[in-house]
Structures are given as C-alpha cells and as structure tokens.
C-alpha cells in the first residue's frame, strides 16, 4: 500500500512534444504585444494619475492566452471569469481577515481555486490575482472591490483583445476555442 503510494510519485507518462518554431514566435509576439499594451497604458497614462493596470498575474496569464491557446484554462470564460472571481474573493478575504494576513492569504487562494472549479472558470494565474489582493499593501487594498474591475478586469480585457487580434493572425492558430 505504501509502495503504491510512492510509486505514484514516479509519474506514469511523458512530457508532451515540443512545439514548432513558428508556434514559439507567435507566442513571443502575442505576449509581447499583450503585456506591451497593458504596460503602455500603465506607465504612459495611469501612472501619472496614481492608478495602475499592470498586474503581476497578467504575466502568468500571458503564458496561457498567447502560449497555450487551445487549453481550456486559456479560454475567455476562464481568463476573465477566473481573474474577476478571484479578485472579489481576494478582496473579501482581506476585508474580513486583515490584519491576519497569514490566514487571509491562503483563504483567498484556496477559496478562489474552489470557486473557479465550481464555476468552470479555472485559470491558474487568477490564484495570484487573489493573493495580490491580500499581500500588496495599501496601493491595492485601498481600492476595495474596485480592484476586481480595475486593474484586474480592465487589464484582462486589454490582454484578451490583443489575444483575439494576434492569435487569429497566425495561419495555424485560432482563438478562442469557446467563449462561454
């Protein structure tokens, strides 16, 4: 019985094949333009009026929506839904549990994950969105629930528009697989 338990840790299959060069280049271009657009808005405009759009978890999302675009995790429902739901949960965890951040942080992530599963919006980077709502200090926590709309919702939306435009330019790509 213990043997079976440890044997599971050996793995049972192999890594999927490496993608082609063309795919790599399109992934590079998509993520460059997607994060570029958000960063430009962030540093070009919002920074001056004390707002921000460039969220760490969007970097993680870029991997999915420009690099693994067929994945269910990368579809608009998951991408937008996951981020916004997790943002709301993260803010709630902070509001209810601060200053006990050691508890607010895992609560935010665990509940986000559970609710994303239940709502079929699983999007791994959104776990970071929930965590950021708890751990980032006043610049984020002062936003309250606005955090879910801006930067999270708005930033994700900009990334999604770029994903639709760029991914579908590639001859062998199509995005999304489904919307909702």
């Amino acid at each position, binding site marked *: 019985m213990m043997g079976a338990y440890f044997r599971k840790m050996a793995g*049972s299959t*192999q890594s*999927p094949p490496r*993608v*082609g060069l063309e*795919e790599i280049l399109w992934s590079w271009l998509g993520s460059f333009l997607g994060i570029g657009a958000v960063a430009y808005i962030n540093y070009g405009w919002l920074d001056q009026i004390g707002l921000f759009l460039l969220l760490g978890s969007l970097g993680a999302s870029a991997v999915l929506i420009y690099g*693994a*675009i*067929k994945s269910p995790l990368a579809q608009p429902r998951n991408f937008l839904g996951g981020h916004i739901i997790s943002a709301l949960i993260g803010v709630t965890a902070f509001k209810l549990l601060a200053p006990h951040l050691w508890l607010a942080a895992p609560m935010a992530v665990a509940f986000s994950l559970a609710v994303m599963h239940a709502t079929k919006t699983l999007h791994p980077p959104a776990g970071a969105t929930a965590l950021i709502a708890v751990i980032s200090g006043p610049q984020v926590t002062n936003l309250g629930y606005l955090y879910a709309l801006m930067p999270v919702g708005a930033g994700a939306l900009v990334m999604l528009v770029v994903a639709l435009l760029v991914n579908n330019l590639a001859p*062998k790509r199509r995005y999304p697989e489904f919307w909702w």
Partner: protein
Amino acid sequence: MPDARDKPESAPTPGIGIKEEDILEAMRAIPGYLDITPGDFKEVYRLAFQHALERLSRAVTAAEIMTTDVVTVAPDTPVAEVAAAMGRRGVSGVPVVDAGRKVVGVISEKDFLTRMGVQDAKNFMSLVANCLMSKGCVALPMEAVLARDIMNSPAVTVAPNTPVKDIATLLTRSGINRVPVTDPDGRLLGLVSRADIVKATMGRIAP
C-alpha cells in the same frame, strides 16, 4: 519511460492497440501547445472508444446483421440429410422449422458429436480422436435418427430488434455460435452467427 503496467486504467481493451507513441505523433501533427499529457489523452481515447463501441453495438440490431438466406431442416428430416445440407452450405448449425416456418429447435455440429458417442464433445477433433481410439467410426447407429431427435429444443431465439450487444452476450453465456431471429409468433426471419457479429463490428469501426 515508466512502466504503466501497474496502472489499472491501462488494462488492455480488446480492439484498442493505441500506444503513447501514436498519441505523441498525433500531438506533433497538431500545431500549437496541447495542454494534456499523452497518458491522459490515451485514457480519454480509451474511454471514448469504448463508449463509441457500446453506442454502436447498442444501435445495431439483429435485423440489420442477420443472414436471411438460412439453411433449414424439418423435424422429420433424417440426420444424414441434415449433415449433408450443413456440409453443402458450409454451416456448422441449422434451425429446425416446422411446416409453418416456426423454429422448433437448432442442430449444431456438437449435437451430432454427442449422438455419435463422443463424450465431452467440444469440436470435430474430439470425434476424430474418438474414431481413432475405437478403431472405427461411430455414425452408424444414427441411420434412422431424425432431426427432432438430436436437435436442441426449445431453441434460443432473439427478436429482430434485439441489439447486437445483447446477442453477443447471449452467445457467450449460452455457449452457442448462432441464434435464429424470429417474429413474435416464432417464425424464422434469419440467423445471426458469431461471424455476422464480427463482420458487422468491423464495418462499423472501420472509418
């Protein structure tokens, strides 16, 4: 690569010889990153394949795959004639029908063997063995015997709308190789043999 033999879900499924290498090749043929391991894909494939087989065999009925050009004999046909008819048509079993085409029994090779004194008759080879060991063949006592004397009666029959899947189960459970298809009054419509099921399944699986 780790051995997958100890994984229960890797148990061999008849008709599915897909290997992880096949899946890797398929994944390479699809541009873009697929967010699934070859192992998971194989499992999805295996279950989907089984599901498709089940659905197809549920959908196909006896009427669609039965042989309608069936050799039959009457209850009072002498067994010599029964044997001759089976030999002529190259079949290993015949339904016995009365004057109104109602199926009253089935005769198979095995019924001959048992009547010829072969204990534990499994196939023709047991007869050969029996003949060789007793120095002489043993069909003679059967001269005056009629079909009704050796037939299996009542016959196991199925309705035309019986799913092939159920027929396969029936054949296996009853240890028989063919089953007459009859209308509600018991009249013969056709015959489904194991070969018919194999043929039908092949046609369905091949794209």
